[in-house]
């Protein structure tokens, strides 16, 4: 199976070395971080295709990483001798005896393992033309892909084109169902992989003889006789109809799969993608099979998604799966520990997430773990009202919503803090915990919730002073004063106690009023400290 993926100068990745999990890789990241690029790179190097189509016609100057293009162009303008950028994509397989043919050191790490290397580089055959092209530097505006070639070889140095694939790859893109017919290249391939070679050959033969039989059908003969007698072409050559007997007209493209009697293209999109995913994962497929799935959650209802994820877990055993997702549900269900976070052209992995935390998120899969994964820093609070107050504190201090700074304020039950802190620790994410004291005398009880996870500059808990009250409301009264809060709530309470009682009783209303108040409200110290910590 794939142990490592190396990418150079391709789209978002100037230089990437990505160690893959042997079974499951869940790629998460913001839009445009490069999740799909990783899938694309794998498809290109494993299948020699991009989006199911051949590579050469799709070659584009935009494949090259921006920085590489800029270096190249500025070098040309400055009149320097600069090498035109080269894209390299390499997959390194586990050293399996069955893959010995693909073995060798023709890779950028000079490792002696089986693998495939794809290189998009200047074709040496066009050296002279290229030299003429760059002799006028001002005319060079982009990478001159006209002089480029795509070269795909195994690590033994043999061209992979036309050889029998030892490793197969299937891509299912549920985010966009590209082809109108619905039966794309990978669907046809998946179906034919599920047939024995014998059944495949017989089907192919039957399809061809059936087509040939059509030629002798009286209707066909009559039609041809009619066409032949009408001299319509300029050159007076005779015209006749025949069937296409090229490989392009094979049964795979001429036969359309039906699900429960309905043509594949007519069933719902969710069902289509689920069907493709499950077909690609069929047990009979080889164990040297890499299945790539883009956003399986698309077009599916929650309950169908639940079923699909269950089947993916069950059937992916022994195969390598790479999938992208924007859904915390998919992530939690398939296993948070398998996530691969893509950001800024790098891939991050979880380090040592404990098993009980994994199973916690697996069981309570509604938790928005992805928010924590994608945030630069997180403030964990105990409820929606605390969330609003902390946001207000942030806005009035820094002039923008915390999310705009990559800080996510997440409301989590106090009991779940430990789980999120464990996840955050594995992610290396900066976390501030803001929690109530729930005690009149000391902060010891509250500190228990985060103490074990505190690290300088990474994780810190923030609690109020015991004399100022056990929850946020009295702490807020102590900091902002009764008069100001009366103005905020448009109330007229005579004592702090009455004010607190009101705020506690109308928790969300009160918090919303605080959040919406146009002027500054002095905040309890520990909240200001917490937002300063994550800023």
């Amino acid at each position, binding site marked *: 199976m794939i142990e490592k993926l190396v990418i150079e100068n391709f789209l978002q990745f100037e230089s990437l070395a990505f160690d893959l999990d042997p079974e499951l890789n869940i790629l998460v990241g913001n839009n445009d971080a490069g999740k799909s690029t990783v899938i694309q790179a794998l498809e290109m190097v494993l299948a020699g295709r991009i989006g199911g189509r051949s590579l050469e016609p799709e070659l584009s100057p935009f494949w090259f990483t921006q920085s590489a293009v800029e270096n190249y162009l500025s070098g040309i303008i400055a009149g320097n001798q600069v090498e035109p950028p080269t894209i390299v994509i390499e997959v390194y397989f586990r050293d399996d005896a069955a893959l010995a043919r693909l073995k060798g050191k023709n890779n*950028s790490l000079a490792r002696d393992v089986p693998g495939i290397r794809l290189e998009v580089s200047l074709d040496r055959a066009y050296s002279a033309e290229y030299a003429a092209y760059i002799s006028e530097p001002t005319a060079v505006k982009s990478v001159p892909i006209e002089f480029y070639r795509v070269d795909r070889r195994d690590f*033994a140095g043999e061209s992979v084109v036309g050889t029998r694939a030892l490793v197969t790859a299937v891509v299912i893109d549920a985010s966009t169902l590209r082809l109108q017919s619905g039966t794309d290249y990978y669907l046809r391939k998946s179906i034919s992989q599920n047939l024995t070679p014998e059944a495949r050959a017989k089907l192919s033969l039957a399809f061809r003889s059936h087509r040939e039989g059509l030629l002798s059908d009286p209707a066909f003969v009559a039609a041809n006789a009619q066409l032949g007698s009408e001299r319509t072409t300029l050159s007076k050559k005779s015209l006749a109809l025949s069937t296409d007997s090229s490989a392009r007209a094979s049964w795979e493209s001429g036969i359309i799969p039906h699900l429960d009697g309905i043509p594949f293209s007519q069933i719902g999109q969710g069902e289509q993608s689920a069907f493709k995913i499950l077909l690609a994962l069929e047990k009979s497929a080889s164990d040297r099979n890499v299945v790539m799935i883009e956003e399986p959650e698309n077009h599916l209802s929650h309950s169908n998604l639940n079923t699909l994820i269950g089947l993916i877990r069950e059937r992916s055993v022994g195969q390598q799966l790479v999938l992208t997702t924007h859904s915390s549900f998919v992530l939690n269900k398939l296993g948070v520990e398998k996530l691969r976070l893509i950001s800024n052209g790098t891939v991050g992995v979880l380090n040592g997430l404990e098993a009980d935390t994994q199973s916690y998120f697996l069981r309570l899969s509604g938790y928005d773990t992805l928010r924590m994964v994608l945030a630069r820093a997180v403030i964990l609070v105990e409820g929606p009202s605390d969330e609003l107050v902390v946001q207000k504190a942030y806005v009035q201090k820094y002039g923008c919503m915390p999310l705009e700074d990559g800080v996510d304020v997440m409301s989590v039950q106090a009991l779940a803090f430990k789980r999120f802190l464990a996840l955050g620790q594995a992610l290396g994410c900066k976390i501030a915990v803001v929690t109530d004291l729930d005690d009149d005398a000391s902060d010891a009880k509250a500190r228990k919730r985060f103490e074990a996870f505190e690290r300088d500059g990474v994780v810190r808990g923030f609690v109020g002073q015991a004399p100022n009250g056990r929850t946020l409301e009295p702490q807020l009264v102590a900091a902002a004063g009764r008069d100001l809060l009366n103005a905020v709530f448009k109330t007229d309470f005579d004592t702090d106690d009455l004010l607190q009682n009101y705020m506690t009783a109308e928790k969300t209303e009160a918090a919303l009023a605080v959040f919406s108040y146009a002027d500054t409200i002095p905040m309890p110290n520990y909240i200001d400290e917490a937002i300063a910590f994550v800023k």
Partner: protein
Amino acid sequence: MQTRFPCRTISTKQLRSSSKAFIASAGSGKTEDIVNRALAVPASEGVVLTTYTDNGAREIRARIVLKNGVIPSNIEVIPWLTFLIRHGVKPYQNPVLGPNLVSGLHFERRPGFPKKSTAPYYLDKSFRVYRDFLAEFALLLNEESGGAVVARIAQIYGHFFFDEIQDVSARDFEFLQLLLESPVTMTLSGDPRQGTYSTTASRTNRGLTKSNVIKWLAQMEKLDLLSLEERNHSWRCGQAICDFADALYPEFADTRSLNVSATGHDGVFLLRKDQIPQYVATYSPQLLVWDRRSEHHGLPRRNMGEVKGMTFPRVLIQPTGPIAKYLSDGSVLVEGARAKFYVAATRARHSVAIVLDDPGASAIRYWVPD
């Protein structure tokens, strides 16, 4: 011989030595035997059959197809130089050269004398490997990669067959020795008397090439790397033809004919030039000549050097000057001419006729029409 052992490990081979070498006379069914052995290997094991010439490889493929209908998926037939490029050089050219630089083979001689162990010593400007230094380069890369070249081959192929081992030259011997020391089961087969080709034009190890390949095989047997077997029989040629051909190589054991058929015109004859039309009309022999410039009497002809592996009922040989001299006074032939004449004579099942008007001291009788 100066043999290097770049990364010799203790090999299980030295305990069991399942590798074999067959030295066989012309017409003994060498290629047939190799093909049968290759087809007998279980389909789960990788097999490679190699030989120096493209023609030889084609012949092996054709025989497999003839017997099996198709070349089984576990069997590959690759000419030797292609094998060396594909498996000896390409996989481990990096980091010595860089990934995927080697582009093919440079068949002609290398000009000049570049410094040893530098790129120009092995490669031309388009990164094609010089034929004469191909095996040497593969040995270097094997050494640089800690033996990975040979280890990889052993991982892919459980069985390795080399037909026409007498064509091997230069550093090929050392590369083959590394394979013999690896877990690969090797089968080497050839006829030292048919050394009409050479894998290189190099002088290295010249004392082991062509008819002297027997010395190298004996060395390998002494090292317990293979067991050597001689097959001194011919299914093809009649006894008189065997005796005539054997006389060219007195240093080798005599060949016993297993062809017992009699046609009324059997054995070796001299033929006067003016009787050629009558002889051809009677027996329709295949004319064999030295090369395209040779006298051909207006008959369809083939070159002696290019008929290895073929069988004809009767042959007619147009001798060169040195061959005529050998026939008339027993003068020793140079190595290449001796091998080609041996090949030419041993193509015939029944009769060999040689065009010669001046017999000198030759004891061979002239053909007399009935």
